[in-house]
């Protein structure tokens, strides 16, 4: 599915652009979340085969030639794990933002220069 592949790459580019150009910490995390969604769409659209259906056996799929009627189930399993881990990473970054704000009272990334040398 070429449209979904193009959509995923455009989302990834927009997310990286946002992460590189914004100064606000929460805006950077939103850009990270957009990059996450873009990569997930790319991986799922790689596993899609045109005209075939989901790999769940019920009344909609004939059991005799089920191998020829379903798409690849491995990329969706990978993405299923990646979504949950993405939520955990986002929550960790947001907790860092809260601690940094309590320390320095600022959300701009220009005010955090302790690691520059």
């Amino acid at each position, binding site marked *: 599915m070429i449209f979904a592949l193009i959509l995923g790459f455009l989302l990834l580019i927009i997310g990286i652009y946002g992460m590189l150009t914004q100064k606000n910490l929460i805006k950077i995390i939103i850009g990270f979340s957009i990059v996450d969604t873009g990569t997930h769409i790319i991986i799922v659209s790689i596993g899609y085969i045109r005209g075939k*259906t*989901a790999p*769940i056996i*019920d*009344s*909609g799929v004939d059991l005799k030639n089920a191998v020829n009627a379903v798409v690849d189930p491995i990329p969706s399993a990978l993405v299923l794990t990646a979504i949950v881990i993405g939520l955990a990473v986002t929550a960790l970054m947001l907790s860092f933002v809260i601690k940094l704000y309590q320390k320095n009272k600022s959300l701009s990334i220009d005010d955090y220069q302790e690691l520059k040398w």
Partner: protein
Amino acid sequence: MADLIYNIAAIIALAGIVLSFVRLILGPTAADRAVALDGMTIIAISLIVFIAYYSNRVIYLDVAIVYGLISFVGIVAVARYLERGI
């Protein structure tokens, strides 16, 4: 004949999503944007049911069930934030 009418109905619902999104771009206050998100959620549930009909799989309806249960929680969170207390 019936398939054509179903497809026309889905395209009209897609136009509804686009119109709500225009309000989400324009909206002067945050409450306007939350209202637009609410409308987009309901239309998306209808669109999921249409895709389940179009692909001829009953199992896709479970996604609509989960969506109908979970989706209003985000809007309630935005509303409680506007009311200054979560």
